[in-house]
Every structure is written in C-alpha cells, then in structure tokens.
C-alpha cells in the first residue's frame, strides 16, 4: 500500500507539471502570445515531466520495496525465531536497526516473562500439592481443626470438626462462624482469640460440647451435662504486616485421657488398700509382741502364725501385681514348650487335695482320652489351673464337689480346660467385672480371703500370653464353671489372634 502511495505521488507531480504548462498556455493565449512560446512551454513541461518520471520512478520503486521489506520484517517480528529483516535499502538501515533493537528488548522481556510464568506454574503445583497434603493430614486427624480469617469466617474446617460440632463441611467455607457453629461458647472463644491478637501464646480452654445428634429439646431438659469434654486450643495467626490473619482452633477429646487417668488412680487406690490391709495386721501384731500384750506362749504363737500368713498374703499380692504389670507391659519372660495339660492338671489337683480334704470336697478329674499337648509356658498355665481349682474349693461349701475336665477342640485346634463346682455361684451383676483387677464379689469377701488379682492374672496369662480365651458360666446358688481354651500351637495362636 505504501509503495502505491509513492507512485501516486509521482503521478500527482506529473499532473501538476502538465497543469502548469496548460495554465501558462491559456494565459498566453488570452494575452495574445505567439504559438512558439506555447509550444516551447509545452516542450519544456514535457521534458521536465519526462525527466522527473525517469529520475523519480526507480526511487519510488526502491522506496516501495524497502517499505514492503520493512512491513514483512515487522509482520515477522511476532515470530521469535525469524530474524527481524534484512534491510533492502541503505536509507532504511537505521530504521531497521532501531526496530531490531526494540524487538530484541521485547523478545528478552517476553523470554523472562515466560520463564517467570513457568516458575510460577511449578510453584503453584508445589503449593497445591502441599495444600492437599496438609488437608489430608488435617482430615485424617481425630482432633477438630477450624481455621478462621480476620473476619471470623471459616477458611478451613476438617471432617472431625464437622462431625463434632454438627455442620456440613463443604458449605461452611467462607461463612461466619456464628452461622456454622451452633456452640455459642466456642464462637465467643474464637472471636475473643481474634480480638486479643496474642501471637506469642496459644490459649487452652476446657470446654464441653454437647452431642450434635442429641435432640435440642432433650439437652434443655437438664441433660446438658451429657457431652464430651474437649481441650480447646486457640492460636492467633498473623500476616506479613503483623496483623491478625485469623485463628486456628483445635478441639482435642479428653475422654480417653480422663478414663486412663481415672483407671490409674483407681488402680493406685485399690492397690494401696490391698497392700495396707495385710501390712496393718503385721504391724499391729509386731507392736503387740513388742509391748508384751501376748501373755502366754499360745497367744504369742497365734500372733506369729497370723504375721506369717499376712506376710505370705502380702508377697502373693505383690507377685500377682508385678506379674500382671509385666504381662501388660509386654516384658514378661515366656518359656514356650510342649505342655502336657493332663499332667499339669494332675499336679494342680495333687496340690489342692489337702485343702479339698479339709472341707470334705471331692475332686474329680475328667480327662479326654486324646493327646492334650499345647505349646505354651508350663509355669504360667499351671498357675491358671491351680488358681481356678483353688477358687472352686474356696467358694464351695463343705461336702461339695469340684470337677476339672480337659478335652481337645479339633475345630479350633485348641485344648479346653474347665473347673466346675457345686459352690455358691456368682451374682449376675458381678459376672462382667469378675476378671477385673481387685474386683471381689462383695458377699464372698468373708467366705474366703483373696487378693482380687487371681482371675485378672489368669485372664492375662490365657488371653495375652497364650492368645486363648477365658470365661465363666455361673448361676447363683447352683455353682460355677470356669473354663479356658489355649491353641495347641503357638503359630495357630498367633493366627487366631
């Protein structure tokens, strides 16, 4: 187009020259000039026009080409791979150079922008992956996590938070806490944390959250105490300008910790009671002997006997406590060998025999006529059989019967031992707690002495050490049947566990 304009310019020049000639001719015709002047003028004009055309036409063409080159160069400049252009004309070279320099600057800028962009894309992908990772961690937590912004609107909440506080996680984002969380105390805590803007300390508050599934009507009817106690941690988050960016709130369920702490203090309290009782007797009788309160040899002998019995009771108690603790802690020494249950039962029966005879209790043994060998710790299994038989004799009135039976169960590949008696039986309400530490049936405390740890130890030996099972069937007044089963092989025991 630009080349065309140059040609048009030349044409205009030519026409102007001709028009001048014609105008001179007309003026001269009017002023009566002669024809030679006219013809001279015409000739001169034609020469001028011709010369102009001959001289200017190649210039125009050259300009046209240079402009076309320039145009192609400019058009091609958008493609970073092609050189800007080769200047076709000397005149145009400075323009081309200036243009090339400018294009180079732009190309460099483009290059750096491109690398910045890919850098940003990588960073975005990394931060996205990190965000997903953090979210996965937060959602896997059992603690509730709620992140709010400076306007007390929810930025993030994990599933535990939604479950504990009873809201829909997906629709909670960017909503004010008061609209999402019905627990007004918690909302106040979060708002307060945001307003105090304390970045150095996290605040811990114990707070009871009522069950979101519970009907509100019921909670109002004096059942508000039912709920779960949480340790609420509130931490203020600051932005780069050291202003409050938001608050992170974490709710940690204290139920299990409370239970464990309660169990621990119950155990200490019961253990302390059980240890102090025989110790009281020992101390009291020693003092009586020292003070000479026993007046005759018979009384003194009786005191010594009581002290001996109580000392034995105390050491039995300590042994049981330590054995249970060792099994619970997994540090008990277990000697696994092939144990013949029949021989083991016979040995226990022999030990119990004098006690049974004293109460005219008959001891029966019913051993199945098959091999009853298990892989286990002989001493520990002996303790279990002896303990169960001793209990039966203790809680069976005079003239009763105690039967110990053993058989194999081919289906479960285990040996089953049971000790049945015609004793007092166990009250139904005591059955679930029978194997608990220090549990003793109230009514039977006077029937026989015990540490309250025997059955708990049996349960640990059978279930924890041998992966077996222990249980009791009993009817009040009709006697009891204690039983346990132990897998024949340790591999089988482990597979069953």
């Amino acid at each position, binding site marked *: 187009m630009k080349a065309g304009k140059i040609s048009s310019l030349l044409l205009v020049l030519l026409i102007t020259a001709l028009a001048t000639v014609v105008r001179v001719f007309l003026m001269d015709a009017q002023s009566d000039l002669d024809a030679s002047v006219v013809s001279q003028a015409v000739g001169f004009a034609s020469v001028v026009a011709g010369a102009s055309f001959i001289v200017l036409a190649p210039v125009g063409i050259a300009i046209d080409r240079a402009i076309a080159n320039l145009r192609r160069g400019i058009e091609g400049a958008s493609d970073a791979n092609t050189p800007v252009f080769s200047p076709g004309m000397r005149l145009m070279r400075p323009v081309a150079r200036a243009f090339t320099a400018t294009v180079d600057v732009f190309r460099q800028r483009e290059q750096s922008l491109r690398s910045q962009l890919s850098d940003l894309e990588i960073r975005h992908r990394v931060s996205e992956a990190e965000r997903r990772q953090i979210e996965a961690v937060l959602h896997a937590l059992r603690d509730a996590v709620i992140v709010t912004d400076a306007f007390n609107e929810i930025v993030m909440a994990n599933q535990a938070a939604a479950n504990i506080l009873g809201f829909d996680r997906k629709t909670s984002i960017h909503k004010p806490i008061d609209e999402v969380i019905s627990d007004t105390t918690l909302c106040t805590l979060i708002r307060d944390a945001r307003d105090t803007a304390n970045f150095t300390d996290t605040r811990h508050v114990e707070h009871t959250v009522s069950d979101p599934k519970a009907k509100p009507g019921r909670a109002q009817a004096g059942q508000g105490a039912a709920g779960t106690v949480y340790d609420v941690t509130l931490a203020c988050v600051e932005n780069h300008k050291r202003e409050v960016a938001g608050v992170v709130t974490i709710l940690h369920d204290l139920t299990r910790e409370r239970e464990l702490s309660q169990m621990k203090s119950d155990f200490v*309290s019961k253990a302390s*009671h059980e240890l*102090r*009782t025989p*110790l*009281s007797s020992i101390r*009291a009788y020693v003092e*009586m002997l020292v003070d000479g*309160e026993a007046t005759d040899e018979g009384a003194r002998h009786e005191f010594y006997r009581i002290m001996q019995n109580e000392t034995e009771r105390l050491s039995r108690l300590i042994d049981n406590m330590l054995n249970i603790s060792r099994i619970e802690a997994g540090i008990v020494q277990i000697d696994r060998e092939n144990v013949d249950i029949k021989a083991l039962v016979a040995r226990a029966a022999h030990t119990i025999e004098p006690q049974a005879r004293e109460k005219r209790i008959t001891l029966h043994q019913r051993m199945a006529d098959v091999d009853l060998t298990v892989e286990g710790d002989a001493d520990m299994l002996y303790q279990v059989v002896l303990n169960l038989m001793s209990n039966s004799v203790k809680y069976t009135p005079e003239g009763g019967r105690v039967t110990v039976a053993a058989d194999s169960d081919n289906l479960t590949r285990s040996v089953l031992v049971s000790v049945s008696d015609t004793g007092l039986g166990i009250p139904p309400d005591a059955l679930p707690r029978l194997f608990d530490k220090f549990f003793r049936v109230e*009514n039977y405390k006077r029937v026989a002495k015990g540490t309250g740890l025997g059955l708990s130890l049996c349960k640990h030996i059978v279930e924890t050490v041998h992966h077996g099972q222990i249980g009791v069937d009993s009817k009040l007044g009709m006697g009891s049947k204690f039983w346990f089963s132990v897998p024949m092989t340790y591999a089988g025991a482990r597979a069953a566990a």
Partner: protein
Amino acid sequence: MPQRILVVDDEAHILQVLSLKLRNAGYEVLTAVDGEEALEYATRQTIDVVISDYQMPYMTGLDLCRALARNPATANVPVLLLTARGHTLDPEDLTLRNIRDVLSKPFSPRAVVDLVQRLLDGAAGGASPRVRSEVA
C-alpha cells in the same frame, strides 16, 4: 463400770488385735464384722466409742457414721475411723460431727488406745479432741 468400745472391721485379724489391746487397757470391747451388725449393737446398748474401718462390704464406715448420726440415741457417740485408702478420702466426707479422728492403716494399736483415751477424756470435759486440735 468399764467404758464400752465397739470395734467394726471386716478383717478378723484387726478385730482380734484391737480387742486384745483395748481389753488389756481395761475397756470392755464389742466386735462387729460390718456396719449393720455394728448398728444393731449400738442401738441395743450404750457405746462410749466406735472404732470403725472405712472400707467394708455392704456399708462403708462413712455410711455407718451417717446412720449413727441420724439416730438421736447414737448421734453423740464419737467415732474413730481407720482407713487403708491413704489420702484418697474426700475431706468433705469427714465433716460429719461424730467423726472425731481418722487413722491411716497400717496403724499402731498403741496409738488407737491413746486416741480412745483422749476421746473419752474429751467427752468428759465437754469438748471433743477434734475441736481442740482445730483450735490449736
């Protein structure tokens, strides 16, 4: 006439040792193996001091103290509690007027006799040792 002491404990050895110590000290001693039996004795005859274990089946030593306090006939009998529970007793529980002292097991029979003597002297003087110890 000797003063009458009622000893309540579910441990036979403790009953035996305390009875002997108190009898040797010149008191008349009654023994009960639980709270119910103790209440029966206390309502049927005059008791000067009750020595009771804290942890017993059916009825704890504290329950026994409450029952004694409810009955006008036994409300003023001073009680000496023995406990094997160490420091786990709630002090709130020990605010009953008739509980004059608490002794931790294992205890010294000598100390029990001394306390009984002090309780009886205090009762005669009109002020309980508990009150005196609070003033001091």
